[in-house]
């Protein structure tokens, strides 16, 4: 019993020495983390159609999923995917032809994000995207998929740490999909788990 007490005492002393011997650094060092973020919110398509864009539905809900590696400094690297509906055209698509057209996109982007001040981040991303076009009208229903190789994203985010593992916040993103020259922006609420 006495030896047990001694072992506990030594352990406590050792740990105390370890912890309290470090003064707070003069700069906050953020330790190496990974975060998994899910986001959802409003998306808006910037209508630049030269044909058939008169009665376009441009506002939808979108969802995103991001995995970030957050090393100890300001920069983070990550991958983002998600699902966004770009636009829907319904009704008289041209003077003579009724129908419905839906276009959606699943991006897979490599992201670089930088914390500029506490909680505020800006980011840039590039990668590939799968664009799906569905038409019903003027004949049969047709679904086509296009692989877009030059795509870009700009983003700004506010991320607040709730506790050691949970973060939440909001994000504004602008996407451009090169193959179809489609541009949209999205405002999302995000929730992240840090591990």
């Amino acid at each position, binding site marked *: 019993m006495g030896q047990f007490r001694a072992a506990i005492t030594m352990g406590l002393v050792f740990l105390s020495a370890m912890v309290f011997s470090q003064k707070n*650094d003069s700069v906050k060092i953020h330790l190496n983390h990974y975060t998994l973020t899910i986001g959802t919110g409003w998306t808006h398509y910037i209508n630049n159609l030269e044909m058939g864009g008169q009665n376009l539905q441009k506002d939808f809900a979108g969802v995103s999923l991001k995995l970030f590696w957050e090393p100890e400094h*300001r920069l983070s690297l990550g991958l983002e995917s998600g699902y966004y509906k770009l636009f829907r055209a319904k009704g008289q698509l041209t003077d003579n032809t009724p129908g419905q057209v839906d276009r959606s996109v699943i991006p897979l982007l490599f992201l670089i994000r930088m914390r500029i001040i506490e909680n505020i981040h800006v980011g840039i991303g590039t990668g590939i995207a799968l664009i799906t076009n569905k038409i019903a009208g003027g004949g049969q229903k047709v679904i086509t998929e296009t692989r877009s190789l030059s795509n870009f994203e700009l983003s700004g985010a506010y991320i607040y740490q709730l506790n050691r593992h949970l973060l939440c916040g909001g994000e504004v993103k602008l996407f451009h999909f090169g193959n179809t020259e489609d541009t949209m922006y999205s405002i999302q609420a995000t929730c992240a788990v840090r591990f």
Partner: protein
Amino acid sequence: MKFRLTLFYLLIISTLVSAQKPATKDTFDITSHTMQFPHHYKKWSFQVSAGLSMVKPPEDLLESAIQAPLANVHVTFGLPWKLSLESDLTTIIVSNQLRAGPRISFLVRNMGIKGGWDIAYVYGQLKQSGFNNSTQAWMHYPNISIGYKLKKMAFTLKGELAIVGKVSTKSGEIEVSRSKTFLNGGTLSFYVEQRIHHNKVFIIGLKDNYVKFYWPTWMLFSTFNRFYHIPELYISWIL
């Protein structure tokens, strides 16, 4: 008594081991860890970075151009008297550019300026529709960079001219085009270098190529005497 002494000694030892370190100040200075920012590179010392460029070619060139990111390795070697050598290999396998040249840099407090002249060799080879096509070119890139640094971040603006010394394109053994010395255009780039992990530095850059002959798209056999804006997003990790 023995026990108390042992405890005392352990206390002393653990305190020493875990360091009454003086408060660890972050002493990182971006200057010596950068590659694009103009500064006096460490003499007789190499720096290497590896990265990718994502390109958006114009529609005229998209018809048969290979769309893939450009892989890049960049090397600097410090010399005395504010000189350095830089070399760069950029490739998408079917198109490759190797360039190298001297630099001279000046650093005054937080501002740096660097000038240089690169010579580049371009080689491409691609089998298209059963034909063995290839290209070779010699190019010159006189360049100048100005930079501004903070303690942990550096910004560099770089401008360069692109001069084609000679470009020759072949299909099999037949030379299908040959051009001699012409001003191909220029590029303007902006780089941000900052720490990413421990003291490793990450480079993000945006580059606009305003050129007639864009070497990664040689396989188009373009006959146009026309300038195009071709933006690149550049990301690189200093190893």
